[in-house]
């Protein structure tokens, strides 16, 4: 008796598996919905999101809102909130941001946040590929979080638009091909670090006239990507990268003697260290204690271009690269210029923006909302249907979009920013505002290093 059951059990399992495979491979084709008005809505392969009459249109934010980097993420969440307020209704529907997810500035945070957002997508009963829930995600703050969040969101048919990811690998490689972490559905309104690294290299080689440089990263994708881009560009210009090394980002690692000695052994004239606090603080504070580093020119990037760091006496004489925030009279399609935005920001939150990417995130949000509005299909009863493949296609086709950061055009890999990098010279730690305005070099590009 028991023998017979043992024979049939595998067969049963096999049948169930076959049935599941059949269902899974079955009908993925487009479903045509015919509406009473005679217009037809044909969703693409990624399905569609439906917004019921009177219901808000959902978007989400995945930003670093806790820990050391929370000032970056919070700044950007405010950019999203102001953009939603300025843009107003989308095809008659209000926009809801829901709960902001925390990317923790880490791969774990990015993954967990993406899962939480995807869990809010609910299939609509009776349809094959209709959903209710979030249409897109504004985020992440950190490139490391995006690398983990993007595969999940991309596979689920969503879009992720970041106003601050600058790590090259999510879009393109230095050779103009898809980057290591590229996935469809990713866009950014921040610059690509391939361009920032190149700009710093050109500044060092052409303006400062140095020929031997060093670079320090901390293993994080943002810092590694930027340091590599700098080193590659500098080598291409004909210079020598005599030391390329890494330090430990952990705040408990306070003694930087080892890494500074390694740098000193390479005898560079200039060192580019696009890392974060507090590792950056320890490096600049202890650099004076290592022989051979007395005359080195230190260059940091936007990660340490923050008031706390600039106030350290040892930072005097440093250079910092970062996105050029002199947006002038650029006007977003919401009708706001950067100055209007700043006034709104202060009125709403009672402070000036503490970080650099609020305006880029504002543009990212307006770009998402306006693109949704452009492709949304409205049923006669007011139900809104948004085809997810069409949303991606329309975002990729973005050209001449008016943002406060400039005119945005997306390329095939999702780089949409109007990239301008400026370098400031920090001459007086007691007058940070003057240093921030002391732009000594600026470079604009169309699309960074494509081809």
């Amino acid at each position: 008796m028991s023998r017979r059951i043992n024979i049939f059990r595998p067969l049963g399992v096999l049948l169930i598996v076959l049935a599941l495979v059949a269902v899974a491979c079955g009908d993925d084709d487009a479903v045509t919905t015919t509406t009473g008005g005679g217009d037809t809505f044909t969703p693409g392969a990624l399905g569609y999101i439906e917004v019921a009459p009177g219901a808000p249109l959902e978007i989400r934010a995945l930003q670093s809102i806790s820990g050391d980097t929370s000032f970056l993420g919070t700044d950007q969440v405010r950019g999203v909130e102001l953009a939603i307020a300025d843009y107003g209704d989308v095809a008659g529907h209000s926009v809801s941001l829901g709960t902001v997810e925390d990317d923790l500035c880490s791969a774990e945070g990015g993954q967990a946040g993406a899962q939480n957002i995807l869990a809010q997508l609910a299939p609509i009963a009776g349809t094959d590929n209709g959903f209710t829930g979030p249409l897109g995600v504004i985020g992440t703050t950190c490139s490391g979080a995006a690398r983990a969040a993007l595969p999940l969101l991309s596979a689920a048919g969503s879009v992720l638009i970041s106003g601050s990811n600058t790590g090259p690998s999510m879009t393109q490689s230095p050779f103009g091909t898809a980057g290591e972490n590229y996935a469809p559905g990713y866009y950014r309104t921040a610059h690509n670090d391939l361009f920032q690294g190149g700009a710093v290299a050109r500044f060092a080689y052409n303006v400062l006239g140095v020929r031997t440089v060093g670079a320090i990263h901390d293993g994080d994708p943002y810092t590694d990507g930027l340091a590599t881009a700098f080193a590659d560009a500098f080598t291409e210009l004909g210079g020598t990268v005599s030391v390329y090394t890494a330090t430990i980002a952990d705040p408990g690692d306070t003694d930087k003697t080892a890494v500074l000695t390694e740098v000193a052994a390479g005898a560079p004239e200039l060192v580019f260290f696009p890392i974060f606090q507090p590792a950056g603080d320890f490096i600049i504070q202890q650099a004076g204690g290592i022989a051979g580093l007395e005359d080195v020119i230190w260059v940091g990037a936007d990660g340490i271009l923050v008031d706390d760091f600039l106030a350290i006496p040892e930072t005097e004489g440093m250079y910092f690269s970062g996105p050029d925030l002199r947006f002038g009279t650029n006007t977003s399609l919401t009708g706001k210029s950067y100055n209007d935005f700043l006034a709104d920001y202060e009125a709403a939150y009672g402070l000036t923006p503490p970080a650099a990417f609020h305006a880029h995130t504002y543009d990212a949000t307006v770009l998402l909302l306006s693109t949704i509005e452009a492709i949304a299909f409205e049923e006669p009863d007011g139900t809104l249907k948004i085809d997810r493949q069409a949303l991606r296609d329309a975002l990729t086709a973005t050209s001449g979009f008016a943002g406060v950061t400039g005119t945005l055009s997306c390329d095939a890999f999702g780089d949409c920013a109007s990239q301008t990098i400026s370098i400031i010279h920090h001459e007086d730690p007691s007058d940070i505002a003057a240093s921030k305005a002391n732009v000594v070099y600026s470079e604009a590009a169309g699309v960074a290093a494509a081809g």
Partner: protein
Amino acid sequence: MTTSNTALRRILALDAPTLAVDFFLFALKMFLLFVAVWAVAGTIALQVAGEGLPADAWRDVVVGGLAQGFMYGLIALGYSMVYGVLGFINFAHGEVFMAGGMTGYLVADALFDAGMWESAFLLAFGIVLLTAVVSSSVMAVLIERIAYRPLRGAPRLIPLITSIGMSFFIQYAVRGLVGESFQTFPQLPVGLQERVSILGVEIEGIKLFVICTAIVSMIGLWAFVNRSKTGRAIRAVSEDKEIAGLMGIDVNRVIVTTFAVGGAMAGVAGLLWAMLFRKVYFLTGFLPGIKAFTAAVLGGIGNLVGAMLGGVTLGLLEASGPTLIGGLRWQIPAWAGVAVSIIAVGGVVLGLRIVRRAEPGRLGAGLGYVLFGAVGLVLGLLVLPGSTVTIPGAAQLKDMIAFIVLIGVLMIRPIGLLGERLAVEERV
């Protein structure tokens, strides 16, 4: 013939797992030794060839390592003393250290605002040091009173777990009080920021200050433990609590004193740490605490001089490790390969002798000598000449390098450099 038959029979009689473990440990030792010799020889060779660090940079590596190491040593003293009298590891000791740094910051910041930090530095430092030492001592004594004394009779594992709980409690209590952001210690007076010339060697003022303060504290502690009546009581308790009690020593009082003194040393270290790195926050004590514990084990837990020696060794290893591992980029010349082969042949001969003598405890090592000798012979003649290894971003591996060396040292000498004793039992 008979001997080798006996040897063979003994080998066959041995259980395979024991042999495998012996062999593995032997292999690990040999590998570490080989890499260490290569790294050190390479560093020296590169230095001779003029490709190494300039002499000034070596000076800074050593001074930096010493400053870091003396601070580890000061913290390690607390671990060692508590282990000596109570026989368990007080994992909350890192937080006692952090408390010293944090209090030091709070007081120094206030004095800086009042202008005293610049104008009367020594007096200000005295005040800051006193508050840091007192707060750390008080914290250590409170921890003992609240968390450990009620568990005095419990198995050793219980206070160990309690100490980890205490550690978290203090970390997050400080976070609640001061916040989670980094507190920036005031800029040091100009004199400490500049280099000072000692016997023609230019040393950074602050590092010299750290080293001197640490040495003075340590001499004070050594004299206290070895020369004072209370110190003798501490040594007596660490030898045997019950007998010491019978001799009229108030054991509880001695234990409290031990915590207070260990806490005071951690307080000094905390303040020096905050002055040197100028950043403190609620987790400042975590990593240095773990490392100081390691230093205490390296020097021989329970041994005060050992704790200092362990701390300084760890500090120097951390500072110089990445540079030394950079020595692997030295291309091994042919003669060095031949030398390895000759040593390897010697290893094979030695191994065969050990196997023939068939001492059961050494068979794994004997087989290891034979096998590794054979491998070394081939490596030395065919692979090594011309070999070079470049490790990118070696500075990021500094903790790994330091800890691998520590593992290596403990494999060879499990009781630590100076052995595990707070007091040497004197018997006539």
